[in-house]
């Protein structure tokens, strides 16, 4: 009698794969908009000339008036206000600029200094012609060539930031995401990492600060930005990367600004989210490889046993 098993196997594999294709790739393609990454090139923003960090420093500390709101801890400039008061005043705590030069794209930083609402893609919320000013005022120039001045400031920020090989996931996340998004799987709150407290009073005081900060943020953005603890599982790397590149693509009208990170910082942010939401991924890979090797050997022995048992039966 003809052995039909290969044909049966083909039929089963065919219908299984067909069903898989229809309910997974095909259905998800129908349900979700898909955007290709632009590689964090920010093509819509103008490039900036080469800057001079020394002149930039004078501008940042002086005419640029950056330090009126921003801390630059690496240059020993403290924050003018604590995070909670800052958020009450501006809606969100202005970032410490220590590592802005390493995390954000240079073109983006240039555009941001010149016209924050435009660079952040929140002009639908902050329309200067309607008197809706972005909390960060635009830089109108210090008397010289404004583009050169901006380039100098960017060069200064890059000069004080950590070098590329020293950029850690934590620095990238805290600078780019952490003032709006919590990540409670790694104990991150919008006002910093939650320490261990000995006294319950201290803990409650900290939590009150977080809640007050979150209230300001909610008022500023319309809703509290989500906790990112396992966004790596719920959204995935591709979505997160293309979303931060241009949030308006996915959610028209969202208050989430364009983040403006460069490609390296984006990878670091992803790594941070993986450490938070998929912490055992390396173990999964190594255990997976070993289990696969074992199970193939198991299958080979099962086959050999069957051959032996069935030798007499044919």
């Amino acid at each position, binding site marked *: 009698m003809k052995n039909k098993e290969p044909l049966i196997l083909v039929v089963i594999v065919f219908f299984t794969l067909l069903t898989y294709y229809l*309910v997974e790739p095909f259905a998800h393609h129908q349900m979700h908009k898909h955007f290709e990454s632009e590689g964090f090139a920010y093509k819509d923003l103008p490039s900036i000339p080469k800057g001079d960090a020394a002149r930039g420093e004078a501008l940042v500390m002086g005419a640029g008036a950056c330090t009126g709101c921003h801390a630059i801890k690496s240059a020993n400039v403290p924050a003018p206000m604590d995070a909670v008061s800052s958020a009450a005043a501006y809606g969100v705590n202005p970032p410490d600029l220590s590592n802005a030069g390493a995390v954000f794209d240079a073109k983006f930083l240039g555009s941001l200094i010149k016209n924050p609402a435009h660079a952040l893609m929140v002009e639908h919320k902050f329309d200067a012609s309607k008197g809706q000013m972005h909390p960060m005022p635009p830089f109108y120039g210090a008397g010289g060539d404004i583009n050169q001045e901006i380039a100098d400031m960017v060069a200064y920020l890059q000069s004080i930031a950590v070098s590329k090989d020293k950029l850690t996931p934590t620095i990238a996340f805290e600078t780019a995401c952490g003032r709006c998004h919590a990540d409670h799987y790694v104990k991150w709150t919008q006002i910093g990492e939650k320490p261990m407290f000995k006294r319950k009073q201290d803990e409650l005081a900290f939590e009150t600060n977080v809640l007050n900060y979150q209230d300001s943020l909610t008022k500023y953005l319309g809703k509290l930005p989500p906790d990112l603890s396992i966004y790596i599982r719920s959204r995935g790397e591709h979505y997160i990367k293309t979303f931060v590149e241009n949030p308006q693509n996915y959610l028209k009208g969202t208050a989430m600004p364009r983040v403006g990170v460069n490609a390296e910082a984006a990878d670091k942010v992803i790594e941070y989210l993986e450490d938070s939401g998929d912490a055992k991924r390396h173990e999964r890979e190594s255990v997976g490889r070993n*289990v696969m090797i074992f*199970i193939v050997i198991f299958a080979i022995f099962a086959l050999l046993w069957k051959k032996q048992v069935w030798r007499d*039966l044919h």
Partner: protein
Amino acid sequence: MAHFTKATSVKDWLNQRLAVEKVEKVMMSEYWIPKNINFLWAMGMILVVTFALLLVSGIFLLMYYQPNVNLAFDSVNYTIMSEVDFGWLWRHVHGVAASVVFLIIYIHMFTGIYYGSYKKGREMIWISGMLLFVAFSAEAFSGYMLPWGQMSYWAGMVITNLFSGGSLHADGLVEWIRGDYVPAQAFLNRFFMLHVLLIPLAIIGLIGLHFGALRIPHVNNQDGEEIDFDAEAKKYLAGDKAGSKVIRFANDFMAKDMMVVGVYLVFFFYLVFYNYGFAMDPVNFDPANGLKTPTHIYPEWYFLWSYEILRPFSTNIGLIAFAFAQVIFFALPFLDKSPNTVPASRRGLFKYWFWAMLIDMIILTAMGKVPPVEPFGTIGFYAALTFIGLWIALPFITKMEKKV
């Protein structure tokens, strides 16, 4: 009282008290299986193995899971996934096995349909198998509630709403099932109980019934041939193993089963480690939020065909069609009027009925997941009508079938 003698060995000691030799004969060495079978007959063993994987992984998940609406989500996604050593492994095994077990159940079911293994004395095998399908469905659904993510919550909302019975407005029944006006603490706790105790107990009992139902009519074979099991067993025991039409359950049948299980496990662990996304929907990694519906709500893939039978109709007709789809498979042995127990390929119109049903159910499955926009709505509507039509046609086309 039975007569006991001094035991000559441990086996003898046990034999006097538990008749282990007899048990071994009845359950294994002289439990006769037809030889004329292919690897599709190993699906039962694969299901046993998968159920064992679910049971073992479930036991370890149970050690850290917290059935509390405030803690459940993080106990799964943080404690088990990040803190507990190998917790991620149990969870991935559990999640993937819960999905794959339905693939094997469907293969097992369609094997039975194709070879007519529900006919002539084998009706109870089919019916107990369908009861197992229902119990597994309930187990899968209740388990899906436990991580308390967005899909858990909204699937719980939508499915329990089905019990309002459309125009019957049995809202009291819905609230009784939930123990609250919406899925909340009482709901999570009772589904936890169902998932870890009541339904597994029912499944284990039904597995016993399913196996028991096989004993008298015996396992079917590839050609539906009626085998004289006693005569063939004698032949085997007399030494004519090659000439006999039957084989021992163990080790003959087991050896082949384990070979198929080996291949299956390669596939299974590939999914566990490298392709688990299909079994763990990304939306369920957002915590449950009763005030925000996900953009798309869909059940797991194995429920999609029946969900799609519900969806294209207005509420009441949809519910009736849905109820029809849930019970109609039970009636298969009685709707098939043909006297033939042979593969579908030799059964005239039934051959086409089989493939039409299989393809229609795949179309329903696909349409159940995509958003209800055109042309999918129309395709789903006609696929649902085709499903109902095929079942109505079944008694007529099988009645016309000639005896082979």
